[in-house]
């Protein structure tokens, strides 16, 4: 029984079957990759997992509880954090504030009326924020405005914001999209490190096979909204169906 159990998800947009009877099981303490050619339904699946889309049928259980019908912030509070393809950070706020916010969210829940307390009095939060920033080597940039960071730093900041919440499941949406090779390597190493040191379960949606095979312990392949296979990387590599799906795409 995995920490995330997706069973029989269907989602149609008008006449288009975006997801057809998708099953997925992410085991605790593993890195699970979801791959597939463009239009395979990867993003739709991700949006279902985080509560942005509600499927027409099926069930999504996380840690023994149903995710369906919950709002994104509730799902996050259950322990799922998400890293976006292009980093979503609080651009107008300082780096330090960016990481303080998830600390508050973890401690105080989805809403708390702490309008009179000073932020400077929250020593435990500040300490947590400092720690995570030093973990991602950004402590010296803590007073910078987040929007002025380089793209790589933005991604690291977003990662830090997710990690500081100590999520049970980290969802990564194409974490290396649009990166140069060197950056890609760095990111792979960073994720490996996180995986090893923090023991966080990860689900990665990725296009880049190189990344997938360096990180994933299990892989689910989607094609045209249908789950094609789910197996270990080694088995996936030579799988004829996968090859067919990808070659098919390449021909187009």
């Amino acid at each position: 029984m995995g920490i995330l159990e997706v069973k029989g998800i269907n989602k149609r947009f008008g006449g288009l079957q975006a997801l057809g009877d998708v099953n997925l099981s992410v085991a605790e303490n593993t890195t699970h990759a979801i791959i597939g050619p463009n239009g395979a339904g990867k993003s739709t699946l991700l949006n279902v997992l985080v509560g942005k889309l509600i499927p027409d049928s099926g069930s999504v259980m996380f840690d023994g509880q149903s995710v369906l019908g919950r709002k994104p912030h509730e799902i996050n509070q259950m322990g799922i954090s998400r890293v976006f393809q292009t980093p979503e950070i609080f651009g107008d706020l300082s780096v330090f504030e960016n990481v303080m916010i998830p600390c508050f969210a973890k401690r105080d829940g989805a809403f708390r009326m702490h309008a009179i307390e000073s932020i400077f009095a929250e020593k435990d939060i500040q300490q947590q924020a400092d720690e995570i920033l030093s973990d991602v080597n950004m402590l010296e940039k803590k007073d910078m405005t987040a929007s002025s960071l380089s793209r790589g730093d933005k991604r690291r900041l977003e990662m830090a914001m997710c990690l500081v919440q100590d999520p049970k499941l980290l969802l990564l949406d194409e974490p290396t999209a649009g990166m140069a090779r060197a950056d890609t390597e760095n990111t792979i190493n960073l994720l490996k490190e996180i995986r090893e040191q923090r023991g966080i379960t990860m689900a990665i949606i990725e296009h880049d096979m190189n990344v997938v095979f360096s990180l994933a312990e299990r892989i689910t392949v989607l094609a045209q909204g249908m789950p094609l296979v789910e197996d270990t990387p080694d088995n996936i590599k030579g799988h004829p169906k996968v090859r067919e799906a990808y070659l098919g795409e390449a021909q187009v």
Partner: protein
Amino acid sequence: MLGLEKKDLRLLLIVIGLTMLAPFILNPFPEGSEMAQFNAGYPDLMQRFVIFGIFAIGFNILFGLTGYLSFGHAAFLGVGSYAAVWMFKLLSMNVLPAIILSVIIAGLFSLLIGFISLRRSGIYFSILTLAFAQMSFALAYSVLTPITGGETGLQLALDDPRIFGAAQTATGNIPVPALFGLEMRASYELALGNWLFTFNAGYYLAALFLILSFYLAIRIFRSPFGMMLRAIKSNQTRMSYTGLNSRPYTLAAFVISGMYAGLAGGLMASMDPLAGAERMQWTASGEVVLMTILGGAGTLIGPVLGAGMIKYFENIFSKINDTILHGWFAFLPDGLENFVVAIIHPFIGKGWHLTLGLVFMLVVIFLPGGLVQGGQKIAAMFRRKQPEDAKSKATEPAE
């Protein structure tokens, strides 16, 4: 001190100093001099400065922090003043219960409107708030006349019940608003040579509320709540994927700023016991938007400055007439005098709107962050000129 950082404490002290000494600061010119026209240190205008300051501070908590642009905030001010006047009519002329009730009523009204309007964001939210406020105005002006007084506004009358106070004074007049016997219009006048300074009870009560409001605003700005509001403005997607529910945060901000507006409305009615429907019209809502942007949205002191500037133009420039102009330029030869007066004429008196419009444009073109940024620019200029001075000052212990 007071749970504030040094910088904020300094700002608060400046505000306290400015408000307490306002009767002096606003009356720099001696009585009877030509420049006395520019004196603003009379009770009505001083009261308006602080009351609209409170209104703008509250508006800024919503707009400056969350970025939600409400175009109907005047409705809460209007509702607040109606509540206060009704308290004067029914209960007593004591301003305290009236102000408390106006804050509560405005809070409830903003809870209702905020709850509905915050289902949308951006321009859609703005138009929803605008629509609610315009409906409030239109109804208050017409079919709700029995409750609101309609066109003439809600006023006190000699035959009001006032169950905890006298319906009439001994001389057969309507009693005036007072704080436990201290009449809001009571003034103490101080003559220093040719200067006359007026210290008005109502002004100081309103100023006290301004300081409290300002202090509360600083605390909110520096609180985790305030940070959350800024985070909402910055990125709502990240907000919800960080496990935070923006709706209650924005609603709380909306209600807080609605209560500020209610406080302003209650104070307005306490200083001058009449509540008119025009207070709720979109132009009034637009005015507070302009005040906030003019001063600098999202800054602490900006909205207060913006409010002061607009009210100053409205009350001082509109009262300058040609006779006064001729008085000023009487020293010039006749032809030149008439010429100068003719040049200035379109900008004063009935032309004060023109001056205000030009000021809006100049500020936004040359000071993109509003008046506060202008102030910072000037400060920076001085700092650059005298770096040594600044440094030596900075090393002094700031008490």
